[in-house]
């Protein structure tokens, strides 16, 4: 395993252990504070891992593209897990389609935003040594801005929620006749 993969590997391991503890520790009578703690750890891994996986990966030698891919590992794993659960409930096609629902898209936007924050911090404090410019950090916000604009415009112009429910469900009905 390459050194730059260590952060994501460690985060994945923590997330798996936290999942086990969070989902099952109550059966062993674990106290609420402990279960809440593991929950917080788990959600932090899921929601914020790009915040540290990306910059540490860069520090450990990953170029931009690879650092982004590494930072997306945990979001993609979680997203696939969500779709897998959905396929058991709705069947293969609709289950996979659930993965296109707005919250998941915004989740990727948030992940890129977290990378942007990491990039900004790197640029400000270690930029010279790594050749990283803090000025590029706002580019990481483009996905979430694009998604937000799309959803906002839908509301503003047509009073239509494109990504979260209305448009998403229209797509479902068109594809699967729901």
């Amino acid at each position: 395993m390459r050194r730059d993969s260590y952060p994501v590997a460690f985060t994945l391991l923590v997330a798996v252990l936290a999942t086990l503890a969070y989902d099952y520790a109550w059966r062993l009578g674990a106290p609420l504070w402990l279960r809440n703690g593991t929950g917080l750890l788990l959600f932090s891994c899921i929601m914020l891992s790009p915040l540290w996986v990306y910059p540490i990966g860069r520090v450990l030698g990953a170029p931009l593209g690879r650092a982004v891919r590494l930072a997306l590992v945990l979001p993609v794993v979680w997203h696939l897990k969500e779709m897998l659960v959905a396929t058991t409930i709705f069947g293969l096609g609709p289950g996979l389609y659930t993965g296109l629902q707005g919250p998941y898209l915004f989740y990727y936007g948030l992940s890129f935003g977290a990378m942007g924050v990491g990039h900004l911090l790197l640029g400000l404090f270690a930029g010279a040594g790594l050749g990283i410019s803090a000025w590029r950090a706002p580019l990481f916000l483009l996905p979430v801005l694009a998604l937000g604009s799309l959803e906002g415009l839908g509301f503003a112009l047509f009073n239509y929620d494109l990504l979260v429910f209305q448009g998403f469900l229209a797509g479902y009905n068109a594809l699967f006749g729901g």
Partner: protein
Amino acid sequence: MLGVMKTYRTEQFVKCFLLVTLTLLSPWLAAAERPNIVFILADDHRWDALGVMGHPFIDTPNLDRIAAEGVLFENAFVTSSLCSPSRASFLTGLYPQRHGVQNNFTPWDNANVTFFEPLKEAGYSTAFIGKWHMPGGIPELRGVDDFITFDHMGGQGAYYDTPFIANGERLVVGESPLPGVELSGYITEDLTELSLAWIEQHRDKPFALYLSHKAVHLPMTPSSGWEGRYDDEPVQLPPEADSWLAFADGNFKHFLWDPLEAKMRDYAETAAAMDEQIGRILTLLDELDLADNTVLIYAGDNGYLWGEHRLIDKRWSYEESIRIPFLLRYPRRLVEPGRRHSSMVLNLDLAPTLLELAGVAPPQAMQGKSLVPIIDGDDSPVRDAWIYKYFEDFPYPVPDQTALRTERYKLVDYKRGRRDELFDLSEDPQEQNNLIDEPRLAAQVKDMRARLMSMTARIEQGKTP
């Protein structure tokens, strides 16, 4: 002889006069005997979130009063734990398989007959005030004189500043559907104000009012007077729950997005705020001297999971989701007020009950059973089993499921995505031990599966199972 003839003629005249008078007055007399009806429906109010049910801190003195003066149905259920299907069952007395509103997207079929129609034909003044929230838009509901509702936020309405639709006419925010009624902007208060005014206007002849609250549905916003009242109350989560459950697995799709304890306090405050408004209805009925001859029913449209089974929301066939509060008060007729009735009753029993109380024959198609014998003091079981159905509601991560609920057992048949379940409710009321593979219960499972299928078939055929 002449005197006898004269007396005979006078008697005949008096008899004829009385007969004609009675014939002419009979509709009026019958109407005068008919009870008024006030049906109050709450949204997502689970069965035990009431003072009278032993909740540790929710203040519901007015609902408690209805229970004290009426009958509390301890085992009341919905046949589908979701707003739209459940509401349609209350109105029609039909299972969702028959009325067609299967989830929050399948439209209301206005060919459905609601309890309003026969009531209207029997001379009632009728009103539906509040949350309609069934797919397919706002219908022209037959039998309803005043239909005051909203389609704001997809029919959910908002706790503050919801614009009303009055008999099809769209009003702007703050505009009152009834002249002279001032609106505060908080929906529970506004719906109550409108109901109070409507009752006052229609007090002189039998009336049937359906007050359909938004409370206590998400986002569970209490009125300003109740906000923060329970901030210091300790909240006990179920053993399997934790504070972050609203974010876990698919639960985030319900948009609770708060620590569970905080949201449970909001829920309690919103319920208490609603109870306060229900108290105003009780007071008005007292003041107008109408309470004695008014059938007052309070119910929830479904239950709510607060972390049990590591779930939130409703939909599932677990007890917390399918049980509802169901209180009935009718002082003029109810035997032994303050009674608790424990046999299983359903949301679809409402319509035939109201119609029988009003002296109107329920449409034959209705699948619910009248609860009038219970009002009259007969505590025999209403049914020994019933069918629960949750239709897939994409993209909410809850499997399509059908359940057979008996007094003791519950069999849950999942279409896919989950192992079927059997619970012995007498031994395991929290439904923690799935007995579906228990060899000693194999025959029980087989029998229940057969019964589930036969009852489902009868329901789908439009028969009473």
